[in-house]
Structure formats: structure tokens, C-alpha cells
């Protein structure tokens, strides 16, 4: 990214701790500045932070299986610190958006600056259903900090000549990439490889992938559940 002008704000000071298994974020919000944080992700904060609940993203957020709210934390009179812990144990990542856009998997949004617009985008039925995830992605655009998270570790991959990612392992990708859902290998692989469908990215940009998924963990626990007695 080129830095052309001095007035470009670099974003807030922050630090990551506990990566990659138990990542959490501490952000220093300058006086009278505001940070957008996913509802319920605030763990600790200074007393001069004032919280305002915002209904963001409109009606479509209802379908994302996400909480409907993003809270805004404003530092009053003096700088303030906030500790943010995502719901799932896993990794946290940061990007500074410079009039760019990034797509996030619907549960990946953690926090952002005020000038980052987070809106839900319908992926389209085909992509949505077959991606094994939600029908919606969150498009984050504008200028400022963006923090996101996932269950498991996150690996950043530079895409120059396309990349294949297993559906459900996508955490985020830059808007510069196009993707489509397709199969890997022949039809025998489609049914028997256990890989099923993949997202095929093309173009140049970045994709962030997660090393674990919640669903397989849930399926793994299932056989350990008691079975209900039938009379």
C-alpha cells in the first residue's frame, strides 16, 4: 500500500495477545474518538468509555445467525482502553482499509473504526448454499481499522494466480478477488474425496483462511451424547 499523504490516519494503537488459540485485542481509543465493536465482544474497558447500541446492517443481519447489534464505544474527555474478546477461541487479525473493501464471513466481524462501513451482502443463492456457510457476507469498506476473528488459527494467503479454498474455511478476502463455487478433481472426487465443493478464487489479492471449523467439532461431540431412552 502506498502512503502518499501525511494526513492519512494510521488507525488506533492496539495489541494482540493470546494468538493464535486464544486471541484477544486491546485497542486504545483516542479522546473523543469512537470504535465500533460487535455486540457482546467487549470484555474490559476504561470507565470513560461511553457505549451506544446501534442497529447496523438492517434486516438482513437477522438471517446471519449473528447478534443484531454493533456497539459504539466513545472515549470521553481522555483516551480510553478497551479489551475485546471474540466469542470463539481462535485467531484475531487486523487490516487497515485505505478506501478498499474486504468481505468477511458473517461471524468474523469483531471491531472497526467509524469510517469503515459494514454492510451485509447477499452472496447469491448458489454461492450461499454451497459455500456451506451463510447466505450473507459482510462487506467492510472505507477507511480505518478492521479487526476480525475466527475459530481456529488464521493464515493469510497472497493470491496472485488464483487459489482454491475449502468452502467453510474462508474467513475473509479482498474485494479484488472473484470467486466461484466448483468441485475439485473429477466426479469421483466430488463424491468420495471428502473435499466436496471448493471456492475457486481468481484475480489478485488476499484471502484469510481458518485452520479449524466449528461444525466438525460439533459433529465429533455428537456420538458422545447420551441417547434418549425409548419406552
Amino acid at each position, binding site marked *: 500500500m502506498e502512503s502518499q499523504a501525511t494526513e492519512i490516519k494510521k488507525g488506533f494503537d492496539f495489541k494482540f495477545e493470546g494468538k*493464535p*488459540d486464544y486471541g484477544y485485542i486491546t485497542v486504545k481509543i483516542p479522546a473523543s474518538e469512537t470504535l465500533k465493536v460487535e455486540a457482546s465482544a467487549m470484555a474490559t474497558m476504561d470507565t470513560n468509555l461511553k457505549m451506544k447500541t446501534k442497529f447496523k446492517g438492517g434486516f438482513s443481519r437477522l438471517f446471519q445467525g449473528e447478534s443484531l447489534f454493533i456497539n459504539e464505544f466513545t472515549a470521553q474527555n481522555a483516551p480510553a482502553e478497551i479489551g475485546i474478546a471474540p466469542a470463539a477461541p*481462535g*485467531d484475531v487479525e487486523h487490516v487497515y482499509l485505505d478506501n478498499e473493501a474486504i468481505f468477511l464471513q458473517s461471524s468474523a466481524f469483531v471491531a472497526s473504526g467509524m469510517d469503515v462501513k459494514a454492510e451485509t451482502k447477499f452472496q447469491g443463492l448458489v454461492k450461499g448454499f454451497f459455500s456451506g456457510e451463510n447466505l450473507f457476507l459482510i462487506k467492510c469498506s472505507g477507511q480505518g481499522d478492521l479487526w476480525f476473528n475466527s475459530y*481456529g*488459527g488464521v*493464515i493469510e*494467503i497472497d493470491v496472485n*494466480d*488464483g*487459489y*482454491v*479454498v*475449502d468452502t467453510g*474455511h474462508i474467513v475473509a478476502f479482498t474485494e479484488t478477488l472473484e470467486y466461484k463455487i466448483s468441485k*475439485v*478433481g*473429477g466426479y*469421483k*472426487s466430488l463424491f*468420495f*474425496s*471428502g*473435499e466436496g465443493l471448493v471456492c*475457486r*478464487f*481468481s484475480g489478485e489479492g488476499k*484471502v484469510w*483462511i*481458518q*485452520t*479449524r*471449523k466449528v461444525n*466438525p*467439532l460439533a*459433529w*465429533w*461431540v*455428537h*456420538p*458422545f*451424547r*447420551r*441417547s*434418549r431412552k425409548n419406552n
Partner: protein
Amino acid sequence: MEIDIQLRPGSSAAKISLATGETLTAEGGSMIAMSNDMSLTTTTYKKNKGGVLKALKRMVSGESFFMNHYEPGPNGGAIYLATALPGDMMTMELNGQGLVVQGGSYVASSHDIEIDFSWQGLKSVFSGEGLFWLNINGTGKVIVNSFGAIYPVEVDGDYIVDTGHIVAFDETLDFKITKAGRSWISSMLGGEGLVCKFNGKGTVWCQSHNESSFGKIVGPKLRARK
């Protein structure tokens, strides 16, 4: 073939870089990302070989019936593999010596590695431990995974490892599956079930946690299944 295991130990994933002409054989469902022109072939055993019987045996061992073979395009490529549960991964180099790998711990191997099934007798079925092991031979690399961390134990003489904590061990070791306590009743009531008694000289790679023990803690907290 270069293997780089990242985000160890809890969220580990293996990045395998392949040169043109190299093939990676991997367990079904483990690929999370790969180069665009990586090709995938799914077979019952080895590429260009049949081996339905071997596939059946492998399925019984808790691995999948089909094996996936990845081959990069003209400029080489990379593939990321990961597993379902939290835990570590490790690369083993084989130079002709054999390795025994616990059924669920196998992730991937290079082309010249042979994988076969070994069954540890009826006792293991009754123990509920599902003791199915893979005999791995040849020259090349093998990637294994664990639930929790992996640690090696150098055995010289006798050593006992709980069967649920074994990831892999050198084929040079003799072993006997036996009960932990003096009697079967005390072994079962003591919650230790079966242990593996090793004898000889070699390495056993153990996992810090036993996944079925963890499952038995989590499962009962959930609503009963229908």
C-alpha cells in the same frame, strides 16, 4: 516436498510445497486450501493401483475408504492440510524403517510411502478404544496429527502407554495390548481400560490428551440424542 507446520500446537495446519512431479497422498477432508492448478485424484488406494481390499481395511481403521492424491501444475504448488479437532501435527521422515500410526492420526504422506492396516485383536473392540493401527513403510515423509500436544518418549526396555494416548511408534518396538490393572474389572472400573506395553528400543510419540476422554466430558452435558 517441503512441509511447514504452522500455528502449532493448538491450531496447527501443514503447508506442503510440492515441486512438479511430486504427489501428496492425503486423508479425505483434510485439505483446507491449495494452489489453483493443483489437481486432485481420488482412488481407493494408491494412484494407478487398485487395492479395494486395502481401502476396506483402512476404512475399518477409522480412516476414509478413499485416498486423495494431489499433484501440482507445471510451476509447482502448495496445499494446506488441517484436522477437525484442536491439536498438533508432526512430520516423520522414513528411510526404510517402519512406523505404526494410530488410525485417526494419519494425515498425509509422500508418494512412495506404503500404508497398510493392522488390527489389534478382538480385545480392542470390547475396550471401546477402537484400536486400529496403520503400518507405514517406505522412504519419504508422513504427517501425523494429535489431539493436544505431541511428545516423544524414548523407550529402552519396558514402557506402558495408555492406548488412547498413542500417536505413533517405531516398528522396532514389540508391544502387547493388555489391561492396566491386575484384573479386567479393576482396569475397567479404574477408567484406564487398555494399555500398550512396549518392549525394546525405539520411540513412541504420545498425545497429551485423549479425545474420547474429552468427549465423555462434553457429551453428557448436551441434550440426549433421539
